[in-house]
């Protein structure tokens, strides 16, 4: 099955992602910011699908949009303060921060501009979509076994840490 109208989808999804991302950092209300972030995440999942990475796209939605963001929303609702909406949203160093970030952006653009010849333009057809999940599974449980186990350990530690942090009395 050949992809249909790739550029349209690409530009649509990336513009959505970037617009939502801008909304994340500009919205006054944290819930709006979180919902915008979900928009970004879902658009990125679409981009992953376009990159023939369906497993990563699914994980992105299941874990990121469905798990992590629900956690975010949960916490925002718990700590949501009306007074927070009336406060100044940006810190005192925002000019410096902005300049630094834009400098970084300039640097990145410079690198991309300079180095665009090093990327091959045509894609290798080495990655069939159909076997994507199997291959990732084999890689995860084969070559990256140790990393995988360490990641699971990390999750355990994070779980303990989160419980310790959030519990009222231990």
């Amino acid at each position: 099955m050949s992809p249909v109208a790739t550029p349209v989808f690409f530009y649509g999804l990336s513009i959505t992602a970037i617009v939502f991302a801008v909304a994340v950092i500009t919205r006054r209300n944290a819930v709006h910011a979180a919902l915008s972030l979900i928009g970004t995440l879902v658009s990125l999942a679409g981009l992953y699908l376009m990159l023939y990475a369906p497993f990563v796209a699914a994980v992105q939605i299941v874990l990121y949009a469905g798990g992590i963001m629900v956690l975010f929303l949960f916490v925002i609702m718990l700590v949501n303060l009306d007074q927070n909406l009336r406060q100044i949203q940006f810190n005192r160093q925002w000019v410096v921060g902005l300049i630094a970030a834009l400098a970084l952006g300039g640097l990145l653009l410079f690198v991309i501009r300079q180095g665009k010849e090093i990327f091959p333009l045509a894609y290798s057809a080495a990655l069939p979509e159909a076997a994507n999940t199997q291959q990732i599974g084999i890689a995860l449980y084969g070559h990256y076994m140790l990393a995988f186990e360490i990641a699971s350990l990390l999750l355990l530690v994070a779980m303990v840490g989160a419980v310790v942090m959030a519990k009222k009395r231990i």
Partner: protein
Amino acid sequence: MSQPIDTSFLDLDSKDKTFLDSTEMVLNMGPQHPSTHGVLRVILKLDGEKVLGTECVIGYLHRGVEKIGENRTYPMFNPYVDRMDYVAAVSNGLGYCETVEHLLSVEAPPRAQYIRVILTELCRIASHQVWLGTHALDIGALTPLFYAFRDREEILKIFEKYCGARLTTHAFRIGGCIYETYDGFEQDVRKYCGFFLPKLDEYEELLTTNRIWVTRTKKVGILKPEDCIALGVTGPVLRASGVKWDLRKAQPYECYRDMDFEIPTGLNGDTYDRYLVRIAEMRQSVRILQQAVEAIPSGPIMARVPKVIKPAVGEVYHSIEAPKGELGYFIVSDGSTQPYRLRVRPPSFVNLQALDTMVRGMLVADVVAVIGTLDIVLGEVDR
């Protein structure tokens, strides 16, 4: 002169506070809420889902029944009492009639007493059925409601045949009953007893051993016996806490003296025990019905009561065991045809006091279960 230093602004306890303590939620339950059984309004202070405190706001159904009583003659007020606990109207009438009879020092003839007992016990079953249905609905079981109402219909049919009314019956009069039983009354009651016991088993099959029901009701809304007595709680709620107190035994009225029945009591005083006690009470009511209908004597049904009821100057308090607890009437007579003061001690009103004690530290869902298990009727609470 040393002044005590006010340290409250330091908020020394803040270490124990949770993040939600600082933003405690105040939830307004009612007066228009599906499970506050009418127009009760409960203001809940919540920590997440945990209840920190409650406050009941009552009076949305206040109709000034007591004041109306002061402006009506004794027989004229009789129908009004039916409107207090409208799911157990017969009991209300019985309490009022007996109190006035005490004021007049008359006693209903034996046949009237038996008719009264039969109807009152039927009414107790009907009231408990309404309780069972609504309580189960509050906890989320839809079906018992319909089963209970289907079977209650049979009782209402007997009421209708007896006095023409189903809900607010006005069945009794001061001094006895005004209606003789209809043909086949005893037969109907006997038939009902046979019909109802299997149905009761059916309810129990649905709920008693249902795991969800048990987990939802056990250890929920525990009321200790001493708390019950301190709060003045009566009726099945008191008995479920293990206090064997039933006015039908403690100060027998009508012909309860001749009846052989037991007072079911609970052990833990939790919602499950209250459920079991009420179910057992229905069985005991059937037992009383079976005895009463066999032993019903013949004779007059009305004592000799003056045409114009003008009790002597004095006061009387008399209470009966209504389905929901002790239903008392206190009447002060100034010798005229109208009471000088009439005060009702409704069981629901007093039992409702226990709500706060029962739900502190529980979850929101338990508040609903506890309101259901207290079996309040707002008509009676607000009067």
